[in-house]
């Protein structure tokens, strides 16, 4: 029973973040399933995908109703994405996963810095919209 509540809570938290931040939620599901529910890495990844598919469909329907999706861009990304996924899955079979993960981690750090700068820029323009900026920046 407690396990069921744990699963529901995990879904609620990750589903909310997925819909508001535009991610699948795998970065939350996989470590949570491994750490709190004793899943193996492989089963956690498979189960994570099985959750992501219907959850992102629900989020996409909600976003579509609010007319936020750029449909032609989504089609281009999705079509290219399927091809990329097939290639990625093949490379995964022959490559050193640890090395790949670390390379991607470095890329993510660069992306995080750029997004942090973007956040600051957006925050400042918000302050300007509101009138005077008390910090004087």
């Amino acid at each position, binding site marked *: 029973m407690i396990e069921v509540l744990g699963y529901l809570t995990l*879904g609620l938290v990750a*589903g909310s973040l997925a819909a508001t931040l535009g991610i699948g939620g795998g*970065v939350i599901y996989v470590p949570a399933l491994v750490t709190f529910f004793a899943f193996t890495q492989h089963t956690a*990844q498979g189960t994570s995908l099985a959750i992501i598919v219907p959850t992102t469909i629900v989020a996409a329907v909600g976003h579509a109703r609010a007319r936020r999706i750029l449909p032609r861009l989504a089609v281009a990304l999705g079509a290219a994405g399927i091809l*990329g996924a097939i290639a990625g899955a093949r490379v995964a079979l022959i490559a050193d996963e640890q090395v790949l993960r670390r390379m991607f981690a470095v890329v993510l750090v660069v992306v995080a810095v750029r997004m942090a700068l973007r956040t600051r820029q957006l925050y400042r323009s918000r302050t300007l919209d509101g009138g005077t900026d008390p910090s004087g920046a």
Partner: protein
Amino acid sequence: MEIPWPKALVIGIVAGFLSGLLGIGGGVIIVPLLVLWLRVDQFQATATSVATISVTASAALITFGVGDSVEWGVAAIVFIGGATGAWFGAKYLDHIPEWALAGGFTVVIAIASVRMFL
């Protein structure tokens, strides 16, 4: 908006490649590339990314799901919570300021980068 096809295809291939390679959804790379490279606003980037992931994750799941690497019962229970969160998240997204979305996203990828490195 006018679709910059070459850039869109590059982003799609990169995101799909990482998805197949590392078992992630790809949103951690789609959203920042749409925002920083294509100059899409954070709200449209969020929505378009989620729509894309539902397609690419389906392709990845077909590869995974045929084996016995999916706990379907657990997935169903987590989905009940996930669908609820996703529905309200999408419904009330407009009430969240753009800087807060960008900031929340920054925190998530910062955590993800540390986890992937270890």
